[in-house]
Structure formats: C-alpha cells, structure tokens
C-alpha cells in the first residue's frame, strides 16, 4: 500500500485512523521526552536521572502517569470552577490541532493543507488562552502573575516567530509544508536563512516558555506560575501540553528550516529514511532546547520584553526587507545566503558581546586565580 493513499479509501475514516496514529505516537513520544529530558539533565548535572523503574528507568514516565491519574483532582475554593477545569483542555487542543498538518514523511501527515505554515502559527496562538484561563481561574496570585507574564511574553514573541517564518515562506514561495520540504531537497533553508532560524529558535524557546525564557513558570520566583493550583490529571494535561508542544514545534522547525524528510536523499531512500530524518532532526532541536535549559539562567521579564521589542522584531523586519530586495531583483540565492549568514553572525556576536562587555568578570577571575591581586 502506498503511504499517501487513504486508508480503506474512505476519507473520514482515513483521517480518523491517521489522527489516532499521530496521537498515539505523540503520547508515547511525550512520555519518552520527559524520561529523556530527565536523563539528559541528569547527565548535565553529573547524576543518573531516573534509573529504578524498569531497565535504566525506562518505565518511569508510565509510573508517573499512573500515579498522577490516581491523585486527587483538587480545586481551590475560590477558583472559578469552569474556567479552572477547562483550562488544561484549552491549552492542549491547539497543540493537538497543529499535528494535523505536520508532514512526517513524504505525503504523510494527517492532512496536507495548502496553508499549512499559516495554519500552524494561527492555531498555536490559541495556546495562550488555556494558560490565561488557568492563571485567571485558579484564584491564586502566583497563578495570576504567571498568567500575566505568559500573556505578555507569548503575544510579543509571536511577532518575530511569524515574521521569521514568513521570511522562509518568501524564499519558498508557498505556505504548503509539503512543498516547502520538497524545495529543500538539495539544501535546507537554514543554509540560506540562518538569521530566520536563529530568530525562530529564540521565539520558539519563548513560546514554549523554556529556559532562558521560562518566566511564566519560573519556579524560583512564582513557584510554577499558572499551574500552581493544579494536581493530578489536570496537571499532567499541562505537562503533556508542554512536551507535545515541544515536539510539535521541533518537527515544525525541522520541516521548515532543516529540510524535513527531504534533505539528504529523502526522495530516493524511501519513507523509512524519511521518518528517521524527521525524527532525528526534531530530536536534535529538542536536544538543543534541553541543553539550554540545563545551562542557562533565566531572564527578567523587562529584559525579555526589551529583547523582543527592541532587538528581535527590528532584526526580523530587516530580514524581511532584505529578502524582499533579493527576491524582487532576482539576485542569486548564494548571495542571499551569504548576507543572511553575515547577519546571523553579527546578531549573535552583538548579543553575546554585550554580556562580555558588561561583566568585567575577568578582573575578579584574575583575583581568585592570582592570590596576590585581591583587589580588582
């Protein structure tokens, strides 16, 4: 049977079967992402991570899931009942809906939408609503603060996210995710749009509220933020949302920037290789995200907003303008790539050098390495 054919030839049954497959895989992947993150963080932190439940702790997530389902579903007395109880679902559904259009292999997603790219970020925007509902409905001040932070942060970072994707769409000339992948058969778009990739990755960290942008959930400040009052199954819904969003975003990033299933020999070597490519690339992005989480401290909310509104949005508009010039005058793609690389390097260099310039840490570092010079 060809992979692209509808199952049993019935359209709605086909959609249903594909959805069930994708959701099943997603649940499994999310469970092992949690396990993987704990193992990986353990490695970064010179400890083992989960290792008791099953061989090398492989069943830890299942044990956690069973425990969470068995826990009492608490609702604070002054919580707004309906808002509180529906918030996890409102947060989860958009992430679930994105999966509908992501291509995992050639012609294989649930549905291949003509406006796939646009669909993904339009639907992702709804993710915030669930978080806001949790923040407002919990009747808790930490949750409220977390909700306000999440709203401010996610609205702001949606703009550079969308614009960086538009830059790619400009180069590709289509919004169909499958066609975007096909166009990257010979070179992934990250090679000609690296700046867009940097912006996308930054905004993605922020949309997922991962470190260093985990301000809405900052456990050392507001101890969990919007889901502070949740327990048991509803809390695990939020957890599921977080990791499912991470996975969906990574697949999306892999599809748009890293060449998805097509880049090296995807068309020749068949769907097994294609699936491997998609999964491998998305896991690479996930690894980057987890690496960031293990090593980077958190930004403050005003620094975060400044970075978005004063740096990222300007850079991304500049990117659009530059791309527009190149496409309008039909200049070569190589030069476009080179200009973008230069832009990306300058951008990262500027961000990085700012911290170095301000630190004067070297003076102190000299202090503790050189015993005689105690005063900087």
């Amino acid at each position, binding site marked *: 049977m060809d992979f692209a054919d509808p199952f049993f030839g019935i359209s709605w049954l086909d959609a249903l079967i594909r959805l069930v497959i994708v959701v099943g895989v997603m649940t499994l992947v999310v469970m092992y992402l949690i396990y993987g993150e704990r193992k990986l963080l353990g490695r970064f932190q010179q400890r083992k991570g989960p290792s008791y439940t099953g061989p090398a702790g492989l069943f830890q997530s299942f044990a956690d899931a069973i425990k969470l389902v068995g826990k009492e579903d608490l609702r604070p007395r002054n919580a707004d009942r309906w808002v509180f109880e529906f918030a996890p679902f409102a947060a989860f559904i958009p992430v679930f809906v994105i999966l509908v259009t992501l291509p995992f292999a050639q012609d294989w997603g649930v549905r291949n939408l003509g406006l796939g790219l646009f669909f993904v970020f339009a639907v992702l925007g709804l993710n915030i609503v669930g978080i806001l509902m949790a923040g407002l409905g919990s009747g808790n001040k930490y949750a409220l603060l977390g909700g306000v932070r999440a709203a401010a942060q996610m609205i702001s970072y949606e703009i550079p996210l969308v614009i960086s994707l538009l830059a790619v769409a400009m180069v590709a000339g289509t919004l169909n995710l499958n066609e975007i992948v096909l166009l990257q058969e010979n070179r992934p778009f990250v090679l000609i749009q690296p700046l867009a990739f940097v912006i996308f990755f930054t905004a993605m960290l922020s949309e997922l509220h991962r470190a260093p942008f985990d301000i809405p959930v900052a456990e050392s*400040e507001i101890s969990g933020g919007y889901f502070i009052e949740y327990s048991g199954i509803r809390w695990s819904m939020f957890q599921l949302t977080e990791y499912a969003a991470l996975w969906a975003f990574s697949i999306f990033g892999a599809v748009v920037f890293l060449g998805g299933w097509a880049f090296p020999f995807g068309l020749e070597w068949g769907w097994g290789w294609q699936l491997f490519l998609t999964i491998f690339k998305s896991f690479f992005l996930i690894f980057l995200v987890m690496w960031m989480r293990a090593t980077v401290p958190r930004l403050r909310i*005003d620094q975060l907003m400044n970075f978005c509104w004063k740096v990222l949005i300007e850079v991304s508009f500049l990117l659009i303008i530059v791309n527009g010039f190149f496409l309008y005058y039909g200049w070569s793609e190589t030069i476009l790539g080179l200009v973008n690389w230069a832009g990306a390097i300058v951008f990262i260099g500027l961000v990085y050098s700012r911290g170095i310039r301000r630190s004067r840490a070297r003076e102190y570092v000299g202090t503790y390495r050189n015993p005689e010079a105690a005063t900087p």
Partner: protein
Amino acid sequence: MTVWPDTREGTLDVGGFETVDMTINVGPQHPSTHGVFRMVLTVDGERVVDAEPYIGYLHRGLEKLTENSDYRQSMGWWDRTDYLAGMCCEGAYCMAVEKLAGIEVPDRAEYIRVIMMELSRINSHFMFFGAFGADLGSFGTSFVYGWRERERIYDLFEEVAGDRMFPTYFRPGGLTMDLPDNFEHRCRWVLSSVRQGLEDFDGLLTGNEIFVERCRDLSPVTQEQAINWGLTGPMIRATGLKWDIRRAEPYSIYPHLKFEIPVGRQGDVFDRFMVRMAEAYQSSRIIEQCLDEMPRSGLVLNPDLPTTLRVPAGECYLRTEGTKGEYSVHAISDGSNKAYRMKLRSPAFCNLSALREMVIGTYVADAIIILGSLDIVLGEVDK
C-alpha cells in the same frame, strides 16, 4: 479640582474592584526562600512596592538552651546555627569560652581548627553559588555543581569527626579527637577538587551574559549604607571596604597566615557573588598553608582541663569572621558550670535587616535573587 482618592493606597473600593497593587506571600514554603523565611511583597505589576520580612519559623531558643546546659553540652546547639558551616560556629563558641576561662589550646589543635573552619567556609560558599544559580533559574545544574564539592568536604568531615553536617568536633580547649591518618592527602585532593569546582562555576555562571545582565548594577550598596545597615562579611566587602575580622581583629592563628581580602567595587549582586568566589579560593590557600605548616604530631586537647568546666565570673565579647559575616559571641559567666548569658550576633540576621531597603523598586525576580545574594541561613537568622 475634584479630589479623587489615590488608588495607590489600596483602600479604595469602587464597585468591588481592587486597586492594582497586590500583595504576594513569598514563603515560608517557597522554592527560593532558603528555608523557612517568609516575605510579604507588595507588587505593582512586576515592581516591588514594599517588602516585609517575617522570621522566626526556625526559632529554637539557642541562647536559652546554652544558658541551661553545661559548657560542653551546649556544643551541639551551636553548629546548628549556621548549619551550612557548623565548624565556624563551634569555633566561635569554643573560642569565646576559652577566652572567658583562659584556657590554652594546643598548637596542632589551632591549625586543625582553622583548616576545619575554612573548609566550612568553602562549604557554605559553594552552597551559596549553587542556590544562587537555582534562584536565577539555571534549573539545578549550578546546585548540583555546588553539591559535588560539598559532598567531598562532608565526606572529609565524616572521616574526621564522624558526622557530616553537625560534627561537634571542637571542644573548649581543643578538639574531640585527632585527625585520621591519611587526612593531609585527602584534604589536598579535596582542595584541588574545590578549585576545579570554582572553575566550573566560572564557566557556568560568570561567563554567561544572562547572568551578568541579571546581576550587574542590581541593588548597589555604598560603603556608607553598608556600615549604617550593619552589613558584614562578603556583603560589606562587595562594596569595596576591606573589612575582615580575621585581619581587623585577628583570632586563632590567622595573623601567621597569608591571605588576601577580596573586595568588590559597587556592592551590587554581581560583586557579592564574585567576592565569595574569590574568598573560597583564598580559603583554599589558607588550608594549604595550614597543611604545610602544622605540627605533625602533638596533643589536640588541653590535658589540664577539669572534668566539670567551671568558668570564672566575667564577661567577654569574641568576634569571628563567620561565613556570612561577623559571627560574634557575647558570653557572661557567673562562675558556675553554665553560662549566665550567651548572646549571639548572627551576621545573616543583620544582613537580612537590609533586605527591605534593597528590594524596594526592583522587580519580583530581582527581589528573589537579592534575597539569594544575602546568603542567609535560617538556622542563624532565627537562632
């Protein structure tokens, strides 16, 4: 002009709407209050308008307990004050009793005491680096980095004294027992590991631009303010003042040892962090010197001590440089086998009193790391 009530007062209730100021209760159960500290923040959005610290959740009546038990019996209470650096507290207590009773301490015991106190200082500072990184949100990595060296130091303590956190190793007049055989070798290994740990923190935190952005120019304290607020220890040295009791009013064998007093420049959070980094390094230097110079053999406890220690009536005030600042003991004896009064000036408590001044006007996230940069330990604050 119509007089409208000022909405910032938080008293106006028009149509069931609250004003924008909001109080949030941070602690005593909160991931970043370093124990059971509670602080009520009044915030306007993300800005801290007011902060009110509440302490006393860990109050155990240390001073009264000491006044009601024998001089040697109360040892165990004292390493539970600054429980991250128990040896420093024991040292201060023992030296106060010795000063009051005029007890001589054998030379070797003095050296071992300094080694232990400086190891405790490193221990406490590593706890600070780790917890501070966690306050900043580096998800436990810094915490585990700090914990690795702490575990090694605790292992050393266990070999020496039989207990890790509360060793009760010191006695008025010396130490409970001598060092184990391979101590010097083990200790040098721990020191090299500590220096590696400092390098690791340097790479993980001080080289990170987000860390610098967060900590630079945050709540700078001038020297004058620091003196007025009674800040001591790394807090005052971060402002640039070379004030270290080990040099200013030397005790034990510190006059013979070579070490520098690291100071900062503007007293901001970054300086406080870096001063502690440098201090941990200087402590490792001190320990190396002690290992080199200490007598290879000899008694570690004054053999002339009576079974029941009766201290002649009198009064003394002994200042030591604890890990958090000036850890001083005011002891009064009425000639019996129990202290008449044993007052502790705990540095964390005094440093904490400046918290309100420091956090007002900052962001909520900053308030947390300013609290972290004070490096309080609740056992000492609440006594």
